[in-house]
């Protein structure tokens, strides 16, 4: 999976996970995940959906310090490589 594939898949996953209507066309790698409608509860939905979409298991705690879409893509890129 290329970096762009990961970002595209991530954007699609976030679109279905987010409880809020978001203009996804303006979402970039620099966008903070907190501004995409995720709160402390719906972030759990996102983690589940990411695990399913990418077919990977990871410790949810590893995501605690991730703030932006790009940082999440970095994490997924590394996890998929491993």
């Amino acid at each position: 999976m290329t970096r762009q594939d990961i970002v595209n898949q991530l954007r699609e996953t976030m679109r279905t996970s987010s409880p809020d209507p978001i203009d996804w066309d303006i979402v970039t790698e620099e966008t903070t995940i907190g501004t995409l409608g995720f709160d402390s509860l719906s972030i759990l939905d996102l983690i589940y959906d990411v695990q399913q979409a990418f077919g990977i298991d990871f410790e949810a705690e590893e995501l605690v310090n991730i703030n932006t879409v790009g940082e999440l893509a970095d994490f997924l890129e590394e996890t998929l490589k491993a």
Partner: protein
Amino acid sequence: MKKLRHLVEYAAVRTFLMLVDALSLRAAELLASGIADIWFSAASRRRGITCDNVRRSGIATDEMKVRRIAKASFRHFACLIIDSLKSDRYLTPETWQEHISLDVPPETLALLKQPDQGLILISGHLGNWEIAAQALSFIKPVVGITRDMNNPYTNALMKKRKPRNAFTLTPKHSANMGRLLKTLRSGNILALLTDQHAQHGMMVDFFGISASTHTSHAMLHLITKTPMCFGYCVKTGPMQFMLKASLPITVPRTGKRDEDVRGILEQLSRELETAIRAYPEQYLWAHRRWR
């Protein structure tokens, strides 16, 4: 004006605590039962909600039985407060097993006794959930989530007063994902109640009627794979309890979030219903589960 009201409430609670401390367990329970009976007679709105909930559950249809269960539930709740307040005298690392017997399957007991194993324990407003958490904390640290009281003076008093052992309460506003994950990762029990109304929850049947239910415990179970059990602690006599727990919940995963969450919540709801049917008078029917 608000501060004055809070101070008056604080003084009343403090006086009540002094009275409870001065009385024996039996006398305090008798007093609490008497107050509960007066409360049941006087609080017509709350009594109405309670009886209506018993009726809607289908546990009782005969009006005499409905009223009997509702009144017993009021008494049970009053005694729950007394037991919780007095438990520090009875529940110590040396003596807690004289007061609490365990009815827990070996598989669940093994999880409880495994030091680094986190566990999500789900219960309801049945029996004494405060005593349940305290008892379990003698085996493994327990973390619960609570909402602070509106009165800051009473809130501080109760926090200082309540015996906890290794049972800690996290205020709802600071129960973020990182904290909950750390709780499980540290090998603690995360204890949550499944029968609280959720503002943005999933509609799940409770006694055949849809009730908005929190999904966070199911999500935590799904994403962390931490074992989840249902449990509750019923009163069997004066300061005597039986702590019951289920086998770890196993629901086949579909890979679809809503279906997986629904499967777990429905199983937990069924477990709670079964437990309530066995001890209807120990359920807090006064709380508005169906809104």
